[in-house]
């Protein structure tokens, strides 16, 4: 899976700011009030990606797995913090999110290495780890966000089930199922339509870099399937740990439904 590297100059990057200008113009013209956000997004993405580019360069040079672990740990922490902001209704969401992202990353990367798909080297583990943590973060955030909504919306049904003597796990089962589903559905759907409606980033990157299309497609498939596993794990772990925080040990809803 080697490909000739391509050279991208800062000038090339600057040229694409023309498209950013289009976005700003659209926002200004239709008063979407996103000009400032677009500006922040462009500056942040430039700084963050440039910085991470140097970090990755450094890690590749060191060729030590400890640096990979450290980088993924940092991603997990930032990912969990970011996801918690989307799951404000869920009490004590940070712990479940940290565990979900860490375990999903460890399990998926461990598995692809154990199966011999990727060598345990920084140049494979760093990009794959980044994708795994990123997608897991989105899935866990969406799942917990939905969980919070579901508990608020269905508090009466949940309490009605508790009132029959069901434990909190049983009472929460329907909302846990729906929340997990909503965390996973985006990736499942995009995997279904991949190649038809959109080309995924890895494949596009490899094709641009001059790789053989068959290789590009195979690598992309590996990543898509890996991501399906990690997203399922992250959603499952986050939800399984977080739903308990809505209940007391005596199987009562902490936030009682309005009378």
């Amino acid at each position, binding site marked *: 899976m080697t490909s000739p590297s391509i050279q991208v100059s800062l000038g090339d990057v600057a040229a694409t700011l023309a498209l950013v200008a289009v976005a700003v113009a659209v926002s200004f013209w239709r008063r979407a009030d996103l000009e400032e956000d677009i500006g922040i997004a462009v500056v942040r993405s430039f700084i963050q990606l440039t910085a991470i580019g140097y970090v990755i360069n450094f890690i590749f040079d060191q060729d030590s797995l400890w640096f990979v672990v450290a980088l993924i740990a940092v991603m997990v922490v930032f990912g969990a913090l970011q996801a918690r902001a989307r799951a404000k209704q869920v009490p004590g969401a940070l712990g479940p999110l940290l565990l979900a992202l860490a375990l999903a990353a460890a399990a998926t990367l461990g598995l692809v290495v154990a199966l011999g798909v990727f060598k345990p080297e920084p140049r494979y583990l760093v990009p794959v780890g980044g994708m795994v943590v990123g997608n897991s973060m989105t899935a866990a955030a969406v799942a917990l966000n939905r969980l919070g909504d579901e508990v608020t919306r269905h508090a009466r049904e949940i309490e009605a089930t*508790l009132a*029959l003597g069901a434990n909190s796990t049983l009472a929460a089962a329907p909302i846990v199922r729906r929340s997990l589903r909503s965390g996973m559905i985006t990736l499942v759907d995009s995997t279904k339509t991949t190649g038809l409606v959109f080309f995924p980033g890895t494949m596009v990157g490899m094709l641009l870099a001059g790789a053989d299309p068959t290789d590009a497609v195979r690598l992309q498939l590996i990543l898509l399937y890996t991501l399906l596993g990690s997203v399922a794990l992250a959603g499952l772990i986050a939800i399984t740990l977080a739903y308990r925080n809505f209940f007391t040990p005596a199987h009562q809803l902490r936030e009682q439904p309005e009378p």
Partner: protein
Amino acid sequence: MLFELKRVTIERDSKVVLQDVTASLPNGASCVAGPSGSGKSTLLRLLNRLTDPVSGTVRYENGDVRERDPLELRREVCLVPQLPALLEGTVEENIRFAAGLAGREPEVGRLLDLAGLDASFAARDSGKLSVGEQQRAMLARALALEPRVLLLDEPTSALDEGARGAVEATLLDLRRRVRISTVLVTHDLDQARRMADWVVRLEEGRVVGEGRVKEQLAV
């Protein structure tokens, strides 16, 4: 006494819902009556530990409810809440779910009959029932646990007059057919007179009267 509340105070969002409530509910048909927002539903939830007081004690059959396993207690003292509260699926699935919690094989036809529904309701989708039918399905589901006490939270508040009369008749008939005590929560004093022998009257989270309905609610 079936239930005894002693100096119970409970708060919600740092607002007092029940203040220093001391009251008793005997076996048989009793009710908790008062205007909306008086704390009736909260009091009912204390009886099977769907909520706990900040201070004070709740006793059921001479024992503190906190000493009971909450899940076992709720199967024995079963609360039929306000709507909507059925699970997705058919009425029979709802009944079987409840019976399964108590480790029982339900007689679905008999339970539907007790709740005033004919056998054809077993296969009906719980999401497509009228409000009155849902109320009866919830009653059938609660009865599947074979509880000793039924806690009924405003069982007719969402019903029109005709359906209300029919549900009341079902509940009165049920008490004749099954040995069961009931605690009814209602804002309707006429309903309290029709349905209960004993009443605890609440206003703004405080007990303002307790005793036989004939004496407390004499017309």
